[in-house]
């Protein structure tokens, strides 16, 4: 049974990839992920503002505690003595690269142009096989037009692409007026892969305390439909790889995404829920399913139900919607 696939130009032994999560903060767990059959690991995201905030915090503490009064010239070791900023992240890339053979994809969530450039360069130098750029941007400024927002995405991709030689993937949200065109533009800007989709952590309210609550919920299998739609539509229309994320709790969702046309499928929720060893289960169940339908290679599965490959392509468009509504009657 051949589970091999190619993602952003990188050959993978399995289409099941660990998506960006805190699980990869521990190099030991990355080794475990490889042992359990992950095709690749996307590291947890490096958030530029977090790095900057941390550096500012350190700087401000150091400044306010150094040279204040005669008896205590300082309280903490010089900043150069420990790893603040990106160093710890880069160290994880280095350690992971030393310890595993599967590709290690760094994840970058930038804010400023300099941040995207500098951190992407550092990730490449540390040995990352690819970079997933995670554009988490809520255009809360009501004067911004859709075109401006789109251009911002394109510019970021171009900037990073011009900075590094390793492949880049773009993890983006689905809220574009013309998602297909946007995907095309991102590919033209240099994206080697698109990761569909980013889940925004949307706020909730606590009505007892009258407070905004930021809590985290794992993705649910019924969330796969939107990415499934777009992967199925985009399959065959782009050269860039397609990664499916969101809603994967087991092999069924993986299979669906592959059928839609995903080159890889990504999950962290399933691993949070069942443990890293669940990668073995998912790989096994994928194989069992393929066996049942006598597929010998994942490549045969990928895109079988994409818009281009099904008998009735309009199933993905307006007609399909009408059909559903009709069925409700």
């Amino acid at each position, binding site marked *: 049974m051949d589970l091999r696939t190619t993602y952003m130009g990188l050959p993978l032994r399995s289409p099941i990839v660990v998506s960006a999560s805190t699980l990869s903060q521990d190099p030991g767990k990355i080794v475990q992920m490889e042992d359990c059959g992950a095709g690749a690991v996307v590291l947890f995201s490096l958030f530029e503002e977090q790095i900057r905030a941390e*550096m*500012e*915090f*350190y*700087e*401000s*503490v150091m*400044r*306010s*505690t*150094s*040279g*204040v*009064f*005669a*008896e*205590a*010239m*300082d*309280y*903490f*070791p010089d*900043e*150069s*003595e*420990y*790893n*603040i*900023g*990106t*160093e*710890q992240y880069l160290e994880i890339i280095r350690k992971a690269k030393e310890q595993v053979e599967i590709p290690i994809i760094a994840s970058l969530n930038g804010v400023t142009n*300099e*941040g995207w450039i*500098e951190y992407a360069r*550092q990730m490449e130098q540390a040995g990352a096989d690819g970079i997933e750029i995670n554009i988490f941007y809520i255009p809360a400024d009501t004067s911004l037009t859709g075109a401006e927002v789109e251009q911002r995405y394109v510019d970021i991709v171009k900037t990073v692409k011009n900075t590094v030689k390793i492949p880049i993937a773009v993890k983006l949200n689905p809220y574009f007026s013309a998602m297909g065109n946007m995907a095309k533009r991102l590919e033209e800007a240099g994206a080697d892969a698109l990761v569909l989709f980013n889940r925004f952590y949307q706020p909730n309210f606590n009505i007892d305390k009258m407070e905004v609550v930021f809590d985290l919920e794992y993705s649910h299998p019924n969330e796969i439909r939107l990415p499934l739609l777009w992967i199925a539509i985009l399959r065959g229309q782009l050269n860039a790889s397609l990664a499916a994320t969101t809603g994967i709790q087991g092999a069924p969702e993986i299979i669906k995404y592959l059928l839609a046309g995903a080159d890889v499928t990504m999950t962290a929720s399933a691993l949070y829920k069942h443990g890293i060893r669940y990668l073995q289960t998912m790989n096994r169940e994928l194989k069992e399913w393929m066996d049942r339908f006598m597929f010998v290679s994942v490549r045969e599965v990928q895109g079988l139900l994409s818009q281009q490959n099904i008998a009735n392509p309009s199933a993905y468009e307006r007609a399909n919607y009408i059909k559903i509504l009709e069925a409700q009657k």
Partner: protein
Amino acid sequence: MSTKPKVVTIDGNEAASYVAYRVNEVCAIYPITPSSPMAEFADEWTTKGITNIWGNIPEIVEMQSEGGAAGAVHGALQAGALTTTFTASQGLMLMLPNMYKIAGELTSAVIHVAARSLAAQALSIFGDHSDIMAARTTGFGLLASSSVQEAHDQALIAQAATLASRIPFIHFFDGFRTSHEVNKLTLLSDDQIRAMIDDKLVIAHRERGLSPDHPFIRGTAQNPDVYFQGRETVNSYYLETPGIVQDAMDKFAQLTGRTYHLFDYTGAPDAERVIILMGSGAETAMETADYLAEKGEKVGVIQVRLFRPFSIKHFLKALPTSVKKIAVLDRTKEPGSAGEPMYQDFATGLLDALQNGKIAQMPFLVGGRYGLSSKEFTPAMVKGIFDELAKDKPKNFFTIGIEDDVTHMNLTYDPSFTLDESKWTQALFFGLGADGTVGANKNSIKIIGENTPLYAQGFFVYDSKKSGSQTVSHLRFGPKPIRAPYLIGKADFIACHKFNFIEKSDILGAAKEGATLLLNSPFGPEEIWDKFPRLIQEALIQKKLRFFLIDATKVAQETGMGTMINTIMQTCFFALSGVLPREEAIAQIKKAIEKTYFKKGPAVIQKNFAAVDATLARLFEVKVPSQSTSKKEFPPIVSDKAPAFVKEVTAMMMAGRGDELPVSMLPVDGTYPSGTTKWEKRNIAEFIPSWEADTCIQCGNCSFVCPHSVIRAKFFHEGYLEGAPISFKSAPISARGFPETRYTLEIYAEDCTGCNLCVEACPAYDLKDRTRKAINMVEKPADLEKERANIAFFEGIPLNDRSQVDFSSVRGSQYLEPLFEFSGACAGCGETPYVRLLSQLFGDHLIVANATGCSSIYGGNQPTTPWTTNAEGRGPAWSNSLFEDNAEFGLGMRVSADKHAQMAQDLLRKLAPELNAELVDALLHQPQELESQLRKQRERVAALKVQLLKMENPLADHLLSVADSLVRRSVWLIGGDGWAYDIGSSGLDHVLASGRNVNVLVLDTEVYSNTGGQMSKATPTAATAKFAAAGKRVGKKDLALQAISYGNVYVAQVAMGANPQQTLLAIREAEAYDGPSLVLAYSHCIAHGIDMTKGMEQQDLAVASGYWPLLRYNPALRKAGRNPFVLDSPRPSIKLPEYAYKELRYKILTRTNPEEAKVLMELAQELVDQRWNTYEDMATWKAEAFSPIY
């Protein structure tokens, strides 16, 4: 040696520690200023895996006190390890008993000492030889270093000599001069160090150690038959030691080219007048003697390196035969002696030489004192002494550098005398503590000293406050080694990094003619002139100064540097000072930036480069007008309303002119008036709180947490508002039953540090604007006339009657006048709110014993002190004895108060027939628990005094002298965790066990905060601290449980940021309990590495995580048959990391050793969980499960 010697710029502490570390196997350490950095360096090197010359990493062990360190040193030596320690002052005093043993047993060891004053009429952290001289009878050799290079070199010479002689040594140098002076020095290579240390001697030392494989007994007890002879057995060792030391010096000279002698002479070969001294002052004296000798004066100086064992033979070799008069200078005072120690040794030695024909005649010998507590010792003073020696009959037992207008012992001298200073560029920098000025200057010294052939020296002077302090950096640069261990008197370059310094003080007083002034100013070249006070304008004109202006704050903001102006000001210095050619200077700065920020990446480097370039573009030279136009004078130091002592004495110290105060102006016994901070008006905050009367719910939380007592509340009848300034705010009181009553919260703007804790504590939001509270930070107005008028009006409103105030609520307690105010503690200090609360609750009958540490410094450091009095003149009586003895000191106060109370009661009974019977009965039997009852007792005492004054019975006089003791005293022992958990632990334990009515307040910051954050036994698991850089593995001592185990001790654990009401309740219960009480108060601290504006929030998180459970153990409940243990905090709602990882002390380890951080955090969580379970369990026990009490 073939390799080029390494040149570095470091201070004396690092220089000495560098060698000590390399030639020892064990260091037992304990922090004490100014020697702490030696131990810190050693600890840091261990963490980094740096080895000694034998390739092993020395064992560092932090002890609970210097006494403990000395014991550990003694033990390690007895077991054969090469062992050292570092200390100063009181620390050395605690080592004395062991030092006699170590010397008596002829044990090779070197103790490195940054010599410091001993606490006498007052504590002083500064340098002199009092501590060394107190140790001179121990049998240790005393080897003195005068410079940073010497401190490095002689650390090695001492080690070589001790191994060869078996006599232990104190190697010392001047604290807060050599210890903290940064200078360029040539570093000893490990090969050179190895060549000095004879391994055979090391092995011999080891073999003298105790071993069960070849056992012997050492440390026996002897009887009158042999003790004396035994004591004399060491004589030959002492006799040989001077020669051994000189041999080591000679060998050192061969290896390094640097020559030292036991006594080194410099000056005219035919000198007739000679000064003898040791330590850094010798450098000054020698430079001066050479200068004067060149001008033809027959003067010279002998620098003493080996003071003990004293060798007159070596001395006479150094002394020119032409000498007729000698002045021996001691940097110590031995009251009541026939002369100071070194003078006495020389007098004895010379007399002996005369009697034995070694000298033909006795020179005229005088002794003098200089430089106590780092008092400046300048070339002018040296010249003054030489001039005195030129007189027929020079004064003996003189002092120099002060005016003694009482016993007239001081010499007069011409302070304008200087050496040729043109060989140096001298620069002065006025900065604000924590603005990066000191760091930038150290960096400049490194850049110039280590990357160019120039020599560099730096010394940094701080004022005595921990918040908003002024720093003055004294930097010299020149082509030759800089031997000038004194402050800069005339500068070529003056930089003022904070604009308002130039408005307040004469910072140009030290400017040379033609010097350069660099000013960081928000005002541009066009407007700046009119902003200057008259004296500044005149100095600029008369001294023909070049004047440069930069708005560093703006450049920093515009180049993304935030509030960091240090790189900008440093760039200006490099560009203007001419120390290096401008291009080279800028290139060097950029090189240094690249090195410093390498790890932070190119963006940070580029940002700094951009700041450098922007600085050069925005640095303007301002043409100085030819006429002064300003009518503005410097503001008065203190208000006209201040008492005479404050105006005449305190204000001089505040103005930095304390050196000018003559002896007669100072109290003879260290007794000073209380409450002087109120006259200081430091105006250090840029943002201050502003009260919104309409939004306020009058809860009192803001003033409850205020560390500086700058928020005061009063309620008053609305009639008092008549004549109020328009800007005076008030609101109807939000309480029932108080008609026509107003409430005002007054902010003392000039005393505020801008810490923001009040805003954080405020629970009341503006309903229309959720971003605003009832108290908000606003920019402090430039003109504070309105604020002053409001405060004056507020102070005119009567204080709320203490008997009418609800002491039991936070809100009520804040109507009580604080008798601890405007201290110099850090902005946002976590300790002072507790201290202030004590003063509010019990201030007028409070006696405080304060352990040395932060609380004794912000509580008692001159010039101004915060413990104050109420309108009746009553207030806390405060004293600090030492660090280690505070519990005993406080107990003594209790015993004394009790004794006097008992005496008063006895006398009352005896005199009863002559007194009003009802009064006597009431005085003896009425309760004094409530404020109203205390007040009545005071009235009764006043009535008693009236009667006593009329009586002729001599017993009446005695009763008068103790009558005040009939009012109950509230005795509090205050100190930090360094005291309570470590150095004072056994005393505290004993005092708690005494059963006496003392109250202990432990301000627990979980480290030695005052000396820079060293680990104590209160430091928690997983946190880092100095001496625990790898993270603390052992759990924090549970002092609460220890005390509870006695049964009769009231114990509380509080955190006002989590539950102010519980804090108030616990402190009141502790005081009310007639027995020992212990209150452990969580005190956030800058040493935790937190955003200090969120200090109270951190306290809340500490409690929420279960790390700091709030509890009360009240023996009175046990007695009443109830469970005395009450857990006041709810079950943990967050995990430990959620609290801990907001603090740098925990976070650092995740950056240096993430794996270890994880392991330790898990362990810490387990400890928290377990402790919580234990407490929760205890809270359910029956009374009988706790210790029964008497």
